[in-house]
């Protein structure tokens, strides 16, 4: 059932207690709603935007960058039905086993769950994302390089909104409400249980409450933290924030050009490589990925044989004919100083806007430089090509080049990170907010650490797993 909160009347919510109320209709929220409906559960799926992008909704994502240079906060993500899947690139794959940690040189990256906990959901995730069959990876090293292992992404064409709109509209189990902006999370008198979520639409001042037995917030890696911090009417520090952790540990996938490659056989498509376990152990760095992005080659000298092209490039660097950009991707270390906070400015609903204080640690910078150097060495060792490193890579005095247009991947992770211990994370292994019986978080905010893979595959796996957990809990009463 598809409903517009602008058209609501009093009878809509007064007598209804849903099994689950999900806030946010992006990949996590839609997947979770469908999973629960498939088990016979009655679900309210609350979407802050409409079916299409709109200025009145998108402007609510505006915020302030208080740390390292970063994209404007209202451009990385989309606030309407289908969420950020409306503009994602689609490159996706699951996390690797080692991404769940712990890593000797960064033990705080450990998840309380492991890859086998998510593997049972991989096949359904691939179906949901309409992933094509796995292709063998491209490898310019011919399988001979120990430090870099060829990897592969599959590309999803799926936009969750268009794909699932009709199904949700037809569903007699899911009530999808558009233009419903979460403005408060109400706790009962024990302050340990959510009694209802409070929403407002754009054109009507009167708020409305949705009641349910279980509640899930799936509004994205930045917004999930912002909403918990803003829910401070009953708990002054915000919900789930008893240890000042909500919003901390903000992580990104650094995605940085580190050099240009001149290659013996120019790549025909994007190549991916991941660092080997041994390399990560030997160099005491983080896990990383290297991409070789083919360049359009227009210089006349590009037609020359490789040895001659290399000689000319060394002699006349300005006219060098490069074949690929070398890009390093690093899931940054989990760092409490890197955080989402509340700004002093408020939005039209009175919620304080977002302030992002993004920071890197030395191991993040080190890993980017190692990724560049290792790729260059592998290219030369196997005579696959030669890499010219960007100047900042070899000059430790220079900062990693970040800007409002480049440097991150718009992957917002770990702001309500998962941990057994409430002193090191906001949610438990089931994505339940520590200290609150019936409030859960969905999406990449629950990642304990970012890993290297793009996050959407894992987001969908976690949503399916949460569906099983909630179904079991509802059975218990």
């Amino acid at each position: 059932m598809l409903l517009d909160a602008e058209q609501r009347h009093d009878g809509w919510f007064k007598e209804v207690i849903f099994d689950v109320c999900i806030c946010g209709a992006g990949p996590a929220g839609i997947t979770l709603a469908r999973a629960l409906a498939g088990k016979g559960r009655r679900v309210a799926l609350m979407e802050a935007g409409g079916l299409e992008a709109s200025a009145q909704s998108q402007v609510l994502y505006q915020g302030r960058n208080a740390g390292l240079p970063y994209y404007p906060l209202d451009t990385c993500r989309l606030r309407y039905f289908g969420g950020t899947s409306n503009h994602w690139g689609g490159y996706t794959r699951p996390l690797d086993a080692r991404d769940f940690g712990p890593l000797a040189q960064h033990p705080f990256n450990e998840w309380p769950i492991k890859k086998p906990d998510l593997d049972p959901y991989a096949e359904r995730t691939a179906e949901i994302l309409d992933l094509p069959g796995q292709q063998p990876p491209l490898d310019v090293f011919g399988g001979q390089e120990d430090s870099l292992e060829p990897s592969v992404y599959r590309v999803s064409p799926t936009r969750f909104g268009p794909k699932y709109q009709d199904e949700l509209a037809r569903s007699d189990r899911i009530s999808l409400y558009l233009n419903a902006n979460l403005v408060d999370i109400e706790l009962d008198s024990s302050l340990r249980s959510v009694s209802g979520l409070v929403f407002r639409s754009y054109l009507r001042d009167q708020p409305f409450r949705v009641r349910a037995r279980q509640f899930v917030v799936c509004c994205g890696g930045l917004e999930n933290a912002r909403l918990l911090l803003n829910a401070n009417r009953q708990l002054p520090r915000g919900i789930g924030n008893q240890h000042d952790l909500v919003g901390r540990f903000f992580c990104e996938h650094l995605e940085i050009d580190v050099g240009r490659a001149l290659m013996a056989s120019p790549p025909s498509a994007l190549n991916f490589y991941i660092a080997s376990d041994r390399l990560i152990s030997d160099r005491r760095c983080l896990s990383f990925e290297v991409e070789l992005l083919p360049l359009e080659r227009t210089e006349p000298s590009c037609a020359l044989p490789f040895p001659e092209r290399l000689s000319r490039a060394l002699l006349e660097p300005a006219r060098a004919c490069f074949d690929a950009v070398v890009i390093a991707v690093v899931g940054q270390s989990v760092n409490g100083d890197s955080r989402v906070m509340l700004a002093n400015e408020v939005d039209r609903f009175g919620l304080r806007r977002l302030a992002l204080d993004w920071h890197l640690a030395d191991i993040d910078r080190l890993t980017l430089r190692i990724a560049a150097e290792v790729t260059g060495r592998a290219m030369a060792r196997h005579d696959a090509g030669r890499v010219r490193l960007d100047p900042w890579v070899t000059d430790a005095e220079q900062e990693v080049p970040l800007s409002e247009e480049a440097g991150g991947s718009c992957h917002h992770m770990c702001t309500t990170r998962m941990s057994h211990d409430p002193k090191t994370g906001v949610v438990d292994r089931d994505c339940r907010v520590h200290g609150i019986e019936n409030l859960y978080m969905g999406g990449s905010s629950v990642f304990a650490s970012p890993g290297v893979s793009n996050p959407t595959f894992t987001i969908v796996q976690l949503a399916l797993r949460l569906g099983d957990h909630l179904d079991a809990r509802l059975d218990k009463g």
Partner: protein
Amino acid sequence: MNRRHVLSLLIGVFTAPATARLPAPSPAKARRIVIVGGWVLRADDLEKVAAYAA
């Protein structure tokens, strides 16, 4: 600034006259990797470039 001058700046250590009569590099030298002027090269690349410049 001629090509050889550019090359000498680039590799820093270039001093030998470049001729086609340079001995073939040893396999060990070919495997040795050096980072020169931001380039990640095999050691014998420098000799090949010198020969090309000549």
